[in-house]
């Protein structure tokens, strides 16, 4: 499988704290990779480094053959992200936000693209509504629409369904799966919902204390490690990382 993202020996140290400790992995086209782990495991730090908003201490990040460190703008042209902690400015309307970010990502035929996304994410009634007054579900749909503006080859999703009810979360998962099926994008997805991960991810990486402890197919990984479910495996990783290979 061709790689859309290659992370090689990536580390981030804050003085004497090691947030990410020499991790290597890749994401292929049309592949959804789950980045799992307890709070503080280094998932968001990894995503921030891939987005170019956090400088790695060492290692390299290559997006479609372009190293992000010397060629940040080129590497990020076909990348986008959605995170629950990065809502779009609430003082602009849905259309205005998509227009501004569409220009930032250099989207061609922008107005048609915005129209299509408003329809796809059922945001047409909110076109001229200020984003600050949208519900959590509507804001998540808008953030996803922004994330798909430039038809990214690499889509980073940091807990995209964290604040949603089960029905809304299912809708969002369906939209993301549709994106992966239709385009050639690869997705790096973090989530604490193991049922969701099992449903959508082709491969998962378990992160603990900044290291990748386990990697594999989410449908078989739990049984390979003597656990009944992915959730049980997650809890083991969070509580007893040493037993699973950390240190």
């Amino acid at each position, binding site marked *: 499988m061709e790689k859309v993202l290659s992370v090689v020996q990536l580390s981030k140290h*804050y003085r004497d704290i090691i947030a990410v400790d020499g991790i290597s992995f890749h994401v292929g086209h049309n592949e959804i990779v789950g980045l799992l782990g307890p709070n503080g495991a280094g998932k*968001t*730090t990894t995503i*921030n480094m891939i*987005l*170019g*908003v*956090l*400088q790695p201490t060492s290692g390299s990040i290559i997006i479609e053959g372009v190293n992000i460190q010397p060629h*940040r*703008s*080129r590497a*990020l*042209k076909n990348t986008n*992200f959605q*995170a629950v*902690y*990065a*809502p*779009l*400015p*609430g*003082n*602009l*309307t849905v259309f*205005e936000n998509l*227009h*501004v*970010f569409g*220009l*930032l*990502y*250099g989207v061609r035929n922008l107005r048609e693209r915005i129209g299509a996304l408003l329809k796809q994410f059922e945001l047409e009634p909110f076109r001229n509504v200020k984003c600050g007054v949208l519900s959590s579900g509507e804001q998540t749909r808008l953030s996803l629409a*922004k994330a798909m503006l430039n038809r990214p080859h690499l889509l980073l999703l940091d807990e995209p369904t964290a604040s949603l009810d089960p029905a809304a979360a299912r809708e969002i998962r369906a939209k993301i799966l549709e994106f992966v099926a239709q385009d050639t994008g690869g997705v790096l997805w973090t989530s604490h919902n193991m049922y969701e991960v099992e449903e959508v991810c082709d491969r998962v990486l378990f992160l603990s204390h900044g290291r990748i402890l386990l990697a594999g197919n989410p449908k078989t990984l739990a049984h390979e490690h003597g656990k009944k479910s992915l959730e049980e495996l997650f809890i083991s990783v969070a509580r007893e990382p040493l037993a699973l290979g950390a240190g």
Partner: protein
Amino acid sequence: MHFNRTAAIVLRQYYLIRGSLSRVLPLFVWVAVDMVLWGFITRYLNTMAPSGFDFIPMLLGAVLLWDFLVRVMQGVTIAFFEDVWSRNFLNIFATPLSIAEYLIGLVLSSIATSLVGLIVMLVLATTLFGLSFFSYGIVLVPFLLVLFLFGIALGIFSSAVVLRLGPASEWFIWPIPALISPFAGVFYPLATLPGWMIYISYLLPPSYVFEGLRTIISGGIVSVSTLLWGGCLAVFYILLACWFFARMHAHAVHTGLIARYSAETVS
């Protein structure tokens, strides 16, 4: 350099301003108040002056030019603060936008917003108080240019300070013009100042403008080399401010502050 990305920063500012009275009014209300206040003060001073000396071009003209510099600076900083206030750094700096494109976007926004203030000031000063800018001659153009360039430099420097120190450090930024004005000799000749202050004045481009303004009003000729020096100094400060902003951004990317900006510090 991609024009689209720079245009996005300007467009964002346009969208914010067009839908918000609280953003439209400050573009011209405070400078209008300044013009009216100083207009009446100069009119009163004219009645007191025994020799029939006209204070309007000296005082009201100086206030207008100084307010223009402040508007230019605030045009840059407020466009930057919009990202601070809406906690937008992660979204905006995770795009392909480069620092140069971002800063040019802030500067273009400032040109548009400061022009509104300048036009309002010119209209009020000429129609209400009879200030004639033709009396300054063509030299008014380089005067405005030097002040514009220095205002841009101050705006970029101020934005860098807030990027480094966090949202609460906004407080440091607003008094900067007031701190500079005594050294710039806005209302009095530099010779009035003590020696150590004059040395600082020589480093400030506006001081060459206001000295030049007084020279013209008293019938003298402004030396081209003096104005050129003021302009060169202003360009130097812009380059310095851009370098400083790039350093502060690099620091924020190194420490992770961009992603956790509301925390103000990551240490």
